[in-house]
């Protein structure tokens, strides 16, 4: 799982060495290429082809309902998307949900990981239990939370003594969506962070303890820097996932009350309105956003963090 982010910084220093390859090394490398070729071809077929085809579609007026009107229109679809107020609204909605839910997941996930790491008995069982929310099918989880939040059938409004349906106004909807996302994804975050905690040698912590560092100092100065690669991977995965949020919102209220996300807009443009051109433009822009997030994370977090290379 981590290989994608791990190889990137490594490949850069490898380049200058290429000229000095021995015959044997070159032959081995060629064999290596041949061995990965089948996988590469499959990858190209299943990922590159749809990607290119989406980009091509996004440059066309392509609407399943008006087949006679199909034609190449250059960047008009992108213009229509970027000029639409609704686009910037859904970007904003998505950013709010992503930032808030991932931050909470990170804090809770870290606490959960620390607890699981220090657990003395029944480690495996308790870890398995903590993973249950993540193991539940996303749509099923969304439905059960939807019932929990609804005024007539749910336990949450009863518990909080609410008189109005939390899902019928924006604030309540955001709280409900974020709580659901946090519940569902914190275990995954915790699991990735737990892997990072395992990288921290106990001797270092003990040495620091001897030097008089308190628990907080040990955590901030030793544990966190050493598990930076794991934190990077965990935050990156969760941010990318959260940014594409769809199922919870779709089940809760189909994007009503100002909760429409980019993926919801993408879905309605492509599948309800059947406007493949415009919908593809939204897809490409979503892809660009995801690319930017990944780039910022790897550049911002990854640069200068030695253990990334070592950890592989």
């Amino acid at each position, binding site marked *: 799982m981590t290989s994608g982010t791990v190889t990137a910084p490594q490949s850069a220093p490898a380049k200058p060495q290429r000229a000095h390859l021995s015959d044997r090394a070159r032959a081995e490398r060629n064999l290596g290429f041949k061995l990965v070729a089948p996988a590469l071809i499959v990858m190209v077929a299943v990922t590159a082809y749809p990607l290119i085809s989406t980009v091509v579609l996004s440059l066309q007026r392509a*609407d399943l309902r008006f087949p006679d009107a199909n034609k190449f229109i250059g960047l008009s679809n992108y213009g229509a998307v970027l000029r639409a107020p609704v*686009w910037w609204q859904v970007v904003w909605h998505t950013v709010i949900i992503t930032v808030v839910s991932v931050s909470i997941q990170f804090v809770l996930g870290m606490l959960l990981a620390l607890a699981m790491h220090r657990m003395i008995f029944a480690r495996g069982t308790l870890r398995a239990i903590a993973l249950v929310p993540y193991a539940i099918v996303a749509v099923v989880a969304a439905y059960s939370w939807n019932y929990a939040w609804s005024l007539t059938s749910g336990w949450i409004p009863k518990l909080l003594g609410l008189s109005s349906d939390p899902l019928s106004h924006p604030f309540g909807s955001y709280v409900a969506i974020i709580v659901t996302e946090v519940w569902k994804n914190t275990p995954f975050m915790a699991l990735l962070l737990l892997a990072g905690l395992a990288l921290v040698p106990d001797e270092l912590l003990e040495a620091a303890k001897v030097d008089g560092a308190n628990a907080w100092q040990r955590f901030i100065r030793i544990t966190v820097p050493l598990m930076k690669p794991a934190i990077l991977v965990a935050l990156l995965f969760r941010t990318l996932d959260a940014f594409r949020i769809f199922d919870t919102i779709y089940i809760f209220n189909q994007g009503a009350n100002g909760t429409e996300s980019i993926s919801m807009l993408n879905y*309605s443009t492509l599948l309800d309105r059947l406007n493949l051109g415009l919908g593809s433009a939204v897809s490409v822009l979503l892809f660009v956003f995801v690319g930017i997030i990944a780039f910022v994370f790897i550049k911002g977090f990854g640069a200068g963090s030695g253990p990334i290379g070592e950890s592989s």
Partner: protein
Amino acid sequence: MTLNWYVFPEPSGSFATAAANCSKASNGAYQIKINFLSNSSDQQRISLVRRLAAGDSSIDILAMDVDWTAEFADAKWIRPWTGTNAAAVSKGVLPGPLKTATWNGRLYAAPINSNTQLLWYRKDLVPHPPKTWNQMIDDAIQLAKEGKPHYIEEQGAKYEGLTVWFNSLVNSAGGQILSPTNKILVDHTSETAAKIMKRLADSPAADPALNVAMEGSSETNWEHGIAAFQINYPFVWSAAKADSPSVFKHMGYAPFPSVTPGVAPRVSIGGYNLGVSTHSKHPQLAFQAIRCLVQPANQARDAIKGGLAPVLASIYNQPSFEKAYPFHALIKAQLERYGLRPQTPAYADVTLAIQDTLSPTSSIDPSSVVSTLRGDIKNALSSQALL
């Protein structure tokens, strides 16, 4: 020859009986195979159009929601009905349902069942059902003051039901959203409609779940006994009878409330029409099969067994139907004096624009609704703007 019929899941088995009987009567000319789609009309459309756009020849007969006719016809996914076939399936059909199957002056499908919303009320709380929307809201506010169940169950979630509600109000106020040639006709009647929706949303008459209410959840809330009124389709009658006898005992029905006092309402028509796919390999057999499926005997059984409102006027006078459908006269009257949602090939865009403007109902600004709707619907009709 197998004919594939794609249709919403019909739970009573009446469609299956019709398919079997028609297949038998064809003397081996065709065998109708039913393929059930999902429950939600949006999902049915998505499943169908994906196949139709890809030229899938395995669909012969498709059940289309009344809103889809223009879209499917202009995209050339369905074949027009002509000659004796057209005459056979339009004979005796109520005017509203027939209109939904017609686009640009041509018949594109055979109506099989219709639907219209009525006012359901609690006879123990409301001695005389209100005649207008404002009266109904006043009655509910009065009940609220008395501390009695008072909610008005209406569908305010951001989905097709919101468009149905708004369109019924606009049509009842004497207006229209789009002309048959797709000119935008949004005017003061839209403001009148928006005012009513806003008034309900802001009053104690509104169920707190109004902004997430759909047909099913409205009915569930009604069965809990927290409401005095419900605007919904006739399925609620048998549902309440089965699930909540204590509420059903007091359940009354009345015409959909008017917008203007003394002027009968025009309520948005629902229901389904049967079309023949362009890519069908056996179109002539498919036309024949549909002619059989919509025959009076089948429609009567669909109604009595399955609760689907017939489109043939004659069935409304059959004694067995009158017994199963005590409110048959109200339905017939509302299908004769009907409201129509906009007929346009860009319907999916137009309805989205309407829902965007009106959701959530409590945030409606009646004074700006006309200009917002005009702008949004113009964008929607171009089918090239992000909505």
